């Protein structure tokens, strides 16, 4: 018998009806005996319903688009300047390494701070999310397999 984790991907195919008859038979048979996978399916359907009901009723967004021709390539002198600047930065990095200073280059998405505002006059919806930095740091997210 397969481990439950092996049915997760099949559940997604089943959810969207993008499944072969054979796979459908297998997943239906499994759902009949597995409470955990039935709960997963219920949660997936609920999430879909949240998205559907949230976005289907809203007014469509729109933004005027202006296509402006712009220069695609840098002039060679600018490219040379960038190359020299890059060489300079590499030198700085070596120096930092010699002094045992650790530099973090990328923040994890989990430590973003979230603030909400509206582009024009505000509506009734004004959640206060200013304290979300700690919240995100302590929240466990669904991982991927």
């Amino acid at each position, binding site marked *: 018998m397969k481990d439950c984790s092996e049915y*997760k991907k099949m559940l997604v195919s089943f959810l969207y009806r993008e499944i072969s008859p054979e796979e459908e038979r297998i997943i239906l048979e499994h759902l009949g005996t597995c409470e955990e996978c039935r709960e997963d399916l219920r949660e997936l359907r609920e999430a879909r319903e949240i998205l559907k009901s949230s976005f289907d009723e809203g007014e469509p967004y729109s933004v005027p688009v202006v296509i402006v021709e712009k220069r695609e390539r840098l002039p060679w002198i600018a490219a040379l300047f960038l190359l020299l600047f890059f060489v300079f930065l590499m030198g700085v990095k070596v120096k930092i390494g010699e002094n045992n200073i650790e530099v973090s280059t990328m923040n994890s*998405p989990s430590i973003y701070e*979230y603030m909400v505002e509206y582009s024009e006059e505000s509506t009734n919806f004004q959640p206060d999310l200013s304290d979300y930095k700690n919240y995100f740091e302590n929240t466990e997210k*669904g991982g*991927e397999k």
Partner: protein
Amino acid sequence: MNEKMVERAMRGETEAFEEIVRQWEPRLYSFALKHLGNVDDAKDITQEVFFLVYRKINQIKKPESFSSWVFSIAMNEIRKMWRKRARERVEIKLPSHTSEKEGYAVIALQMITPEQREAILLKEIEGFSIKEIAGILKIPEGTVKSRIFYGLKALRKEYLRLKEESHERLQ
């Protein structure tokens, strides 16, 4: 999208391209807004994607795959924006006519990983098949399914938590 319209735009007919912009602008802008949660970033992405479509439209090999091609470009630009934003504070800025429910959904979308979000939006909002999404994102179909599975579960959890916290504040 009408294939003939794409073919006319590929031949350099300005009117055909303008029609493509008219048809695609709300779709691309809404997609970027849901993905980034910020009107200014979404406007920048929309402008940039149309600029790239304008410059590269004669490179399309299959006019019937125009949708997938445009979303490949859009995903590249959105990823660039995410890399840029990874070093900054994320500001959620929504249009004033956004409903409460929609606002919570957009915020909940920002709380799942960008990889999960792009797979979910391409599936749920744009209606691409799992196979098409795998092509757009250049990843195996199994990975698309995995991202959708864990992404939808995390999204539901965050959405319900946001609503619950909001109700507690109001009480």
